[in-house]
């Protein structure tokens, strides 16, 4: 007996077919309409607080070498991008991406009164709140709530994971989390699950029970749509063998098979490098860069790179001065990576961090992370950023 079945050993068999009331029209039956120019956003989260200064190295600044005696990356090892900054040697895979003009680095992104707790700062980045404000919805979730022309489907936002991040949860709409479309498809096509949806319209107007049933119907519909749209697609590109690369491979499969999803969310974890940072961070940056390079080239091959924008963030950067354990402690502002085929400004977007003007040992931020979100909302997802971020943020010129 298949242990994956919803109800092992209960011998439940469904009869009849899935009934869905007319006002909950199945998504697969909707007209594949005006959405020919489909722009995708891929959000990459580096969890744990990636040390930005050992990612994009300010090799042109002596202060960096003074503050990081045992963990600084030597100038001769840095992959130089200009006279001041360059990449960690473990990121060699991104050199080609940079040279193609598919990459922008935004320095010193942060927010006022930064919080050094992982959880709280991640909360702030995912909800787009001020540091003394508690929001229970995420910035992408509120984009879904806005019910704009391009975000009406329940599969508008997909997180390639088992559970859904706060960033993807709106008040009335939420993204969908799935690691493997085939597994979700199996679950929603389980006889028990289907039987639960059968002939059930009386609940839909009830508040909480109706919400549960609507969620099930949307999940089932989305699972069918995602599986049926993407299953035939076979990627010809090779990806490195890592969990992170696998997530990106799934995203590429979805984008390349023409899924009408606008936002994808993936994450890579383990960046809280208080102790012996060099090896651990190097290993992660290698996974990140090799996975990302394979992904971007795959998109290019499939002619989707111009329609895709990738951003990478971490909840905070780390302190400028290293600690006594050859690691770094929680800090504030950090750099963000932006990738895509249609970047307005390529390479390094703004000035390198000013290491001589610190706030009690921490970088001062130049740009609010919500300016980056705001730019994407306005210029890429075609909504008014003030509607999503609760106040208007000035946009930037990277796209």
């Amino acid at each position: 007996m298949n242990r994956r079945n919803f109800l092992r050993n209960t011998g439940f068999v469904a009869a009849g077919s899935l009934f869905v009331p007319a006002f909950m029209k199945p998504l697969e039956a909707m007209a594949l309409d005006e959405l020919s120019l489909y722009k995708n956003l891929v959000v990459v989260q580096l969890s744990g607080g990636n040390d930005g200064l050992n990612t994009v190295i300010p090799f042109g600044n002596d202060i960096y070498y003074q503050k990081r005696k045992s963990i600084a990356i030597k100038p001769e090892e840095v992959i130089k991008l200009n006279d001041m900054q360059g990449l960690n040697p473990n990121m060699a895979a991104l050199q080609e991406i940079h040279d193609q003009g598919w990459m922008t680095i935004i320095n010193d992104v942060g927010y006022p009164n930064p919080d050094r707790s992982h959880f709280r700062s991640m909360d702030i980045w995912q909800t787009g709140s001020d540091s003394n404000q508690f929001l229970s919805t995420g910035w992408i979730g509120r984009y879904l709530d806005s019910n704009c022309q391009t975000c009406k489907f329940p599969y508008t936002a997909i997180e390639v994971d088992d559970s859904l991040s706060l960033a993807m949860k709106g008040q009335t709409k939420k993204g969908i989390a799935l690691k493997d479309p085939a597994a979700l498809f199996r679950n929603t096509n389980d006889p028990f699950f289907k039987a639960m949806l059968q002939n059930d319209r009386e609940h839909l107007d009830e508040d909480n029970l109706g919400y549960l049933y609507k969620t099930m119907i949307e999940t089932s519909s989305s699972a069918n749509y995602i599986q049926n749209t993407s299953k035939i697609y076979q990627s010809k590109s090779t990806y490195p063998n890592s969990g992170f690369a696998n997530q990106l491979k799934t995203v590429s499969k979805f984008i390349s098979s023409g899924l009408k999803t606008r936002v994808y969310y993936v994450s890579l974890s383990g960046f809280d490098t208080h102790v012996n940072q060099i090896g651990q961070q190097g290993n992660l940056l290698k996974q990140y860069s090799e996975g990302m390079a394979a992904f971007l080239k795959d998109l290019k091959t499939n002619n989707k790179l111009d329609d895709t924008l990738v951003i990478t963030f971490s909840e905070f950067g780390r302190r400028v001065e290293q600690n006594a354990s050859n690691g770094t402690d929680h800090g504030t502002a950090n750099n963000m990576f932006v990738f895509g085929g249609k970047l307005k400004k390529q390479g390094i977007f703004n000035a390198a961090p000013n290491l001589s003007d610190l706030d009690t040992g921490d970088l001062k931020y130049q740009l609010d992370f919500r300016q980056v979100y705001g730019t994407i909302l306005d210029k890429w997802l075609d909504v008014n950023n003030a509607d999503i971020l609760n106040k208007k943020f000035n946009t930037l010129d990277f796209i």
Partner: protein
Amino acid sequence: MNAKDNFLKVKHLYNRAGFGISYTDLQKLSKKNLEKVVDNMLKDSQKDDPIKLVNDFESKRQLLVQAGLYAKKDLTDDEKKMRQQIVREQNEVSRDLNIAFINQMINTDAPLREKMTLFWHGHFACRSNNPFFAQQLNNIQRDNALGSFKTLLVEVSKSPAMLQYLNNQQNRKGKPNENFARELMELFTLGRGNYSEQDIKESARSFTGWMYDKDGSFIFRENLHDTGTKTFFGKIGNFEGENIIDIILEKPETSQFIARKVYKFFVNDNPNEDHVKELATHFYNSKYDIASMMKKMFTSDWFYSPENVGTKIKSPAEFLVGLSREFYVTYNKPQVLIQLQSSLGQYLFNPPNVAGWPGGQSWIDSSSLMLRMRIPSLVLNDGEIDFSGKADPEDEAVIALSRVATTNANANTKPKSYVNANADWPKFLGTLPKGLTPLALTEFLLQPKLNDKITGMVSDNKGLRSTAVEITSMPEYQLC
């Protein structure tokens, strides 16, 4: 008194005020007058079992060692190792503490006290890396769960866990830190809009010097306390923390804020403002006696009206505890309870922020609902787990220390894992009356009214055990 009617009311009461009820107890209690049942429940919950997992003495010793290491500038390799060892132990004990709280809820015979503890756990939401602090706060919430709200509030405010979490350790004369004062009013008592920024500033000054010392005991450091005159809600004086709390409690807005939150937790996500007012007035007039407010609520007719029965989405903790309690589940690898909590979005002792878990429909998204519907078969039928929860951001340091774990956490090749739990079926079935039909079992296990579909699904007599697994896997089982 209609017997069937009382049966449903007692069931509702125990589902909301506790974590469900066994069929045997339900039958017994249904014969009693409802007010008596409520009184009994309050009486049962006079029993107060604090969690005693973390050893006081050992924790204080550890705190002193930590403080010593923290103060030192250059640590030897051995000292560094010692520091890491302490952090590792604390992480491990924190997980054990989480499981101890869950087990306490599963096994308690003071269900209302534990349910209220869970309520205060979300109301006074707090995170602490130190399991001793976390246990202490949890026990404060349990001890005072049904007592005086004032005592509860004062003790929470003096607990090292909260002093640390809301930065009152950094709140000093001349250099006030307003974090605690702000959350005290915004989230713990008055609610937004009922105070000014000036009130926050002045009360922050009043809480200067509220700290804990090296071994984790509350201490009022007079030399760090701002003894100047403060103006708080129009009152002028040389206020200290407790004066501020008194003034806050004098304002009826506090009783309204707490009553509304209690109502949303126990009655309905969408509060009926008349009922909330009734409750708040009672709470205020009883000088913030929590048990008295609870009794008022549980004996009100509206508590049992149809719009309030079977219409609330269970929190992950209510769902897991209720299921485990109902079927007498033993977890052979209790760590799985942590995985389940984090996948379902409520990892106890780790609230998203000081505002606690938002609750209601926010518990449910496609993946959490699918998982909830599969958990009964995983737990009751020993199914295979094919999901992994996200790492908690606070665990990142642990992940970073063990590279192997990082690679595995992201890789697709994982060994098969099972919940490895045992439901005590004979015991469960033994609580049911002889000849109970699958339909009657369904009526017992589900809170929402049954419809034709469910009646049809369970009427083909698969036996009670299969029926039970089926029912608990339904969306209707997510409601209480």
